[in-house]
């Protein structure tokens, strides 16, 4: 087991967002989390990476075993070294070029020599199809290109897992494709991925496991076929009916 999270709880004020979620991820898994807005998908992802502090919960991550609420700075740093994160709003460093965005974490975070980091960074940008844009600043890039830099920044760190928080939700529809293509490609290479998305096609074609969340709990999980073709829970059925065309079953 590469990552195991148990009984994670998180509230914002009176509002309980996560009500005891368990999650297990094996090496090489591509897990997609589906669910309506406000179901706690993003919060779950953010708690795993300590961008939000969970109120309760436990994580076993390789050799690190921590309480999500009381984790020490050192444990947080250790876990973050194993995880990369791709944000909905890209969150590129606006004062740095595409290449610097990718190498920043390598040079400063991982203490890799600059020349070597540049090599790794260029390779990562080549992989996402941005060989021409090494020296472009984020403002000079389209949304799709910015998100691809975001993915390159994550891939370059060679993490154990990459978390994707709605990576295509902020993009113009015609730019979604280029980002999904890159994500499919790195999934094929065996990258372990945990993806929150509304892109059903990605869930169907790429995921080996789909988790359906609603109102702060995991309603059901299974293979894409299990979830899309024969969902057991009424809530899942309702959700799929809403987000997929009537004849969605023929897409499978």
């Amino acid at each position, binding site marked *: 087991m590469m990552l195991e999270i148990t009984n994670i709880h998180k509230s914002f004020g009176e509002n309980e967002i996560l009500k005891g979620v368990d999650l297990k991820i094996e090496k090489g898994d591509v897990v997609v989390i589906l669910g309506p807005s406000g179901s706690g998908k993003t919060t779950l992802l953010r708690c795993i990476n300590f961008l939000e502090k969970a109120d309760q919960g436990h994580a076993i991550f390789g050799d690190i075993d921590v309480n999500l609420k009381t984790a020490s700075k050192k444990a947080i740093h250790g876990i973050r070294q194993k995880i990369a994160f791709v*944000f909905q709003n890209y969150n590129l460093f606006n004062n740095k070029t595409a290449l610097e965005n990718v190498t920043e*974490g390598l040079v400063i975070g991982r203490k890799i020599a600059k020349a070597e980091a540049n090599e790794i960074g260029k390779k990562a940008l080549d992989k996402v199809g941005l060989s021409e844009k090494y020296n472009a600043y984020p403002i000079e890039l389209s949304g799709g290109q910015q998100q691809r830099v975001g993915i390159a920044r994550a891939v370059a760190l060679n993490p154990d897992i990459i978390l994707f928080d709605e990576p295509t939700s902020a993009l113009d529809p015609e730019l979604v494709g280029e980002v999904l293509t890159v994500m499919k490609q790195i999934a094929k290479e065996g990258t372990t991925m945990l993806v929150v998305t509304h892109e059903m096609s990605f869930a169907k074609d790429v995921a080996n496991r789909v988790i359906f969340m609603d109102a702060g709990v995991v309603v059901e999980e299974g293979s894409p076929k299990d979830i899309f073709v024969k969902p057991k829970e009424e809530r899942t059925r309702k959700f799929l009916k809403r987000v997929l065309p009537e004849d969605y079953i023929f897409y499978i």
Partner: protein
Amino acid sequence: MEKYFDVSYIVESVPMLIPFLKVTLMVAGLSVLFGTILGFILAAMKIGNSKIAKKIAYGYTTILRCTPSIVLLFLTYYGIPAIADNFGVNLNDIDKAVFVVITFSLQFAAVMSEVIRTSYESIDRGQFEAAVCVGLSNTQAYWRIILPQAFVVALPNFGNSLLELMKEGALAYTIGLIDIMGKAELIIAGNYNTHALEIYLALAVIYWILSIAIEQLFLKLEKVFSKGKQVITTT
């Protein structure tokens, strides 16, 4: 009969005023230095989590911004020695420039705390999150990602406040500081209060040149530091 307006007074008074420019610049420079440091502390208090610190910092800013410079100057000039006197310390022989620097440092700090706070808050917090996610420490994320961008946002307002401070600094002559303003007053008094217009014109010209120089400097600085902020045309 002597002319009412005589250009030669302007030409003659400029070289007499110039040596006192260094007093003006020194007072302004020190006020900016101390004011910026105090401004940073106040901004940190406003941004931080402590409610008491926040209240103090905002209260300070409100009071200082609502006090006219000249009133604040008299308050420090008469107030500080009075307080010191209570503790048996005699501050009567202290250089007047000290009170001017204290006054304008306090005032500049209030302005700068807002400049620093707003420019810090203008940088999207997401970049900080991204930085810690790729393995930077909180401090590294601030120094390498957030502050360089906040600095560029702050520059125009900082330059503006600095110009304001330099001009307000002219009030220091009221407590008897001899900067270029004080010197101009002395020259006019020496002329039995005639030809004041020419002397003030000379003074204005010096302030104009100084202000334009500062303005240009900040425009240059903004250009140098704003990489990634403007679209750079690539060939």
